[in-house]
């Protein structure tokens, strides 16, 4: 009533002012380029393509089915399907993408491509420093830049990667047992349920 609240407020800010020089705990700012916080495990920023084995061109899980291209809400994925087929990670003959581009400037990180992919070929990455000074070429990432190994996937999202790996091994074992031999040509690999429908 007599202005004591004003004095209380002034005392509080003065405490903050001097306290910020004394105790480092008060300053919650992390000075970003020099110091950085590790993103949480569930962080998702931009999709990448998973490949098995050591060679990305041989081990790419993507079979160019183009479901993600069709589902992508802002239409930022461009896929060209190959004319020929080549063996995938388990030795089955599959199509593969001759072109797989994602436009960073259009992608809105919705993760729908990941949810619809029947082959667990596209997953979300944690990298967020995707800025470039070349606004025409630099913002379109081709399949060479997008391809990252399964080990990398394990490194950034261990829980999800372990779950995907377990499922894939089980399915591959099942299909191998059912067909007896990798002779099922046109049927292709049995499709695992999309993760979004679990």
């Amino acid at each position: 009533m007599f202005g004591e609240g004003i004095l209380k407020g002034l005392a509080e800010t003065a405490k903050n002012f001097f306290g910020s020089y004394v105790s480092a705990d008060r300053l919650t700012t992390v000075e970003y380029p020099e110091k950085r916080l590790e993103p949480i495990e569930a962080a998702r920023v931009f999709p990448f393509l998973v490949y098995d084995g050591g060679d990305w061109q041989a081990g790419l899980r993507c079979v160019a089915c183009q479901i993600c291209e069709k589902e992508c809400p802002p239409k930022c994925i461009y896929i060209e399907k190959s004319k020929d087929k080549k063996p995938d990670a388990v030795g089955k003959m599959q199509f593969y993408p001759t072109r797989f581009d994602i436009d960073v400037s259009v992608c809105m990180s919705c993760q729908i491509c990941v949810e619809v992919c029947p082959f667990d070929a596209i997953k979300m990455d944690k990298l967020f420093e995707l800025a470039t000074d070349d606004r025409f070429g630099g913002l379109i990432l081709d399949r060479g830049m997008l391809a990252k190994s399964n080990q990398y996937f394990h490194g950034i999202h261990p829980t999800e990667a372990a779950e995907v790996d377990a499922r894939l091994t089980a399915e591959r074992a099942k299909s191998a047992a059912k067909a007896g031999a990798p002779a099922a040509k046109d049927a292709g690999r049995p499709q695992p349920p999309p993760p979004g429908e679990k």
Partner: protein
Amino acid sequence: MIDHPIVYQADQIFVLLKHWLIGQLPSSVQPAAGVLLSVVVIICLFPALFAVTTIIERKGLGRMQNRLGPNRTGPFGILQPIADGIKSLTKEDIVPTSADGVVHFLAPVLLVVVVFMGFAVLPMGRNMALTDMDAGLLFFFAIGASTELSVFMAGWSSRNKYSLLGAMRAVAQMISYEVPLLLSSVAVVMITGSLSLNKIVEAQNHYTWGLPHWYIFTPWGLAGFLIFCIAATAETNRSPFDLPEGESELVAGYHTEYSGFKFALFFLGEYVGMFSISGLGATLFLGGWSAPLQILNFIPSWFWFFSKLMAAICVFIWMRGTFPRLRQDQLMNFAWKFCLPLVLTNLFVTALWRFLGEGWLRWALCTAILVVVYVAMARAEMRSGHFGSRRYRYAE
């Protein structure tokens, strides 16, 4: 102590330097050159102080909010004002198509010219006033009142509803708070018996037991100083009275439509206005350039003036970091229903002080009257609902 030659020369260094410089010129141009030199120094000095103040403000506000503040430009971010200056100089100067171009251009220029003119009468040190005007205080307030005009010119010529709302708020607020500002200074004039700012400082430059006779150390002076501070904050549109530019309500108030260097001029005008009103407050109540203790008299007088000025600026920043913005009706109620009665009481108390003569009686009586009036008014205002938390008529 001022009689010691070294102390005297340190105290008068700028005055002696000026005399030496204009002594080089033929005697016919000497008076004009002297004035020109002082004006140039003032025009260079206060924008430099403005640059320092912006970085102090940004760092200080950051620390009050437990942030770091700018720290990228140069060591600890001290070159930030230079970066800001380059940025505002190189930005495009946009004038809205439907704006009144001439008035739109004149408003920031007029503001800056007017706020600089206040320094003409401020004594910044012993013998360091540009002009010793007999009615210096009157001149200061007359010039200070013209800032309202430039603010309204900016708001009106922009042809933007936010600009106009901001300008109308600014005019209402500045005219309302001009009244307590003036009346709180009138108390000083009543005691000193002069409108000359030099005489007002001289009157406070005495010491008893090594302590100064500043007006803030009297009951009426303290009350007057507090009201002066409140009114000065409102007069310079600083938080918590920053309604004219309240960015959460009005984009940027009267300078919404300004960009580039004109915007920078508005900023300069606001800060230089703060400097001049702080300087006036220091001159009226804090003894101007006189030292706070008699033994500190060996430190030059201009140092004390600028220390007091910067201390006042730090208080401005501190208040900005603490208080939320007032509502328009609260602002007006505060000016007319609280500050005005209190400052009128203070005038009465000052007269009493003047005629009661020396002794403890006037101390006791004047303090008692002020405290009783303050408490009574705070209670009355609280009961009538003008102060305190807001009561909602329909949404209880």
